[in-house]
């Protein structure tokens, strides 16, 4: 077996083994379905209740996407401001770090108070949580332009705007995409938390509701759907990254 095949097969094998143990354990020990349903039951629920899961997934997906966009825009603007105006960095840096010490759980109820039960509090929670990696990576990325290249631009009479658009911005993309991949993952958590605090739809809402009804199989099916939503999002970011950073690949074409 070559390396590539091994790399694909190994995680699948591990997953299958774990699920087999779970399946066997649940059946042999006669664990009730409202405590730990076997994987086969979860898959069956996932298929049978697909319409319901789809309905709630769309909401959660939309919250995450809007949250990510909002968090990215705010994060990138702040990163650019900080790079160009040093005093802003001194002003914001401690606050940004401190803001990360405040659990999102603590803020989410306030957002419900301020923004209501609709889409927006979840979008804001997802944005808040994705904001941090974008700022940090954005600042690093925008600063990555080297001195000599900046001098070259200056010697050519480039304006500050040209230096930003033609040098700093494209140079920041590798770091920004690293940030986006982290943010995409974290935003899933953000949106779910938002839905737990108060919602009438979305996978987080479905989980809480099913949990209260002891429909643990639906909770698991929702977790599975949430995982797929997260993976889909991560995949989309990866595809955009591969396109935007195609110059990194060594082979022509």
């Amino acid at each position, binding site marked *: 077996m070559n390396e590539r095949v091994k790399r694909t097969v190994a995680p699948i094998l591990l997953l299958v083994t774990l699920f087999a143990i779970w399946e066997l354990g649940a059946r042999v020990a006669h664990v009730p379905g409202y405590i730990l349903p076997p994987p086969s039951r979860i898959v069956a629920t996932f298929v049978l209740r697909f319409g319901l899961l789809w309905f709630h997934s769309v909401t959660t997906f939309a919250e995450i996407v809007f949250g990510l966009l909002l968090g990215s825009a705010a994060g990138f603007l702040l990163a650019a401001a900080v790079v160009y105006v040093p005093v802003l960095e001194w002003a914001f840096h401690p606050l940004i770090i401190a803001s990360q010490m405040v659990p999102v759980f603590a803020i989410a109820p306030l957002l419900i108070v301020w923004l209501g039960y609709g889409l927006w509090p979840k979008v804001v929670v997802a944005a808040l949580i994705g904001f941090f990696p974008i700022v940090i990576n954005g600042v690093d990325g925008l600063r990555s332009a080297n001195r000599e290249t900046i001098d070259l631009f200056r*010697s*050519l*009479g480039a304006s500050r705007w040209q230096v930003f658009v033609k*040098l700093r911005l494209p140079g920041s993309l590798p770091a920004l995409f690293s940030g986006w991949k982290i943010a995409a993952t974290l935003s899933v958590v953000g949106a779910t938390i938002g839905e737990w605090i108060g919602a009438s739809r979305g996978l987080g809402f479905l989980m809480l509701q099913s949990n209260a009804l002891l429909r643990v199989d639906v909770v698991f099916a929702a977790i599975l759907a949430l995982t797929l939503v997260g993976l889909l999002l991560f995949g989309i970011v990866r595809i955009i990254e591969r396109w935007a950073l195609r*110059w*990194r690949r*060594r082979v022509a074409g």
Partner: protein
Amino acid sequence: MRQERTERGILEAVGLSVSFPSKPGRTEVLSDVSFAMERGTWTTCLGPSGCGKTTLLRVLVGLIELDRGRITVGDSVEPRANAMAYLPQQDTLLPWRSALHNAVLSSEIARHPRAESLSEARSLFARFGLSEAERLYPNQLSGGMRQRVAVIRTYLAHRDILLLDEPLGALDTLTRTTLQGWLLDVWRELGKTVLLVTHDVEEALLLSDRVLVFSPRPALVRARIEPTLARPRSRTAPDFVTQKETLLELLTGEGI
């Protein structure tokens, strides 16, 4: 040979002095450097590493302020930066742009019409052996190819004087030799005035109409040599070897 030239050329630098802040006081980097260049000629600054040759180029393009001295380009003192295109020593190709789009960066910054710049760059690529490189990204190019693209980019700034800071410094000997010939072709065909910085005696002798020999820091012009060699020059010609000896002696200070 060491007499001051006073004839007016395309560029005249008189008494350039530059110092940087240091502990304590200031360190002098350029000390009373004077020279002149005539239109279409090739001048080389030859000096030991770290002597301040790069500082000289950065002064000329206006990246560093002068303590004292005067730079005249053509008939005007300012704005001189518009007369010069600078090629920094380190690799400054933008990795996310193809070779062709790297080459048009300078004209793009000057807001030249895009289509026009691209077609001009294409024809230069074809003329100077870079056609296959057009669509490749810098990380797909060899060191020699990258430097060629960088030189074409410098040319496409459409300025009269090209300032080249050790453009062949990071290359292996073979590529370096090839590119020296290539640089001469470009210079001859495009008719620009060139100021090259190098610490390679042979390179200076092979390419230049005039060599300015710099002392170690603080740099001052120790000698001005005009190689009396017919072009194309050969490294093995007896005259070449003799003049190389002279230059080496000047460089190491033994000739003074």
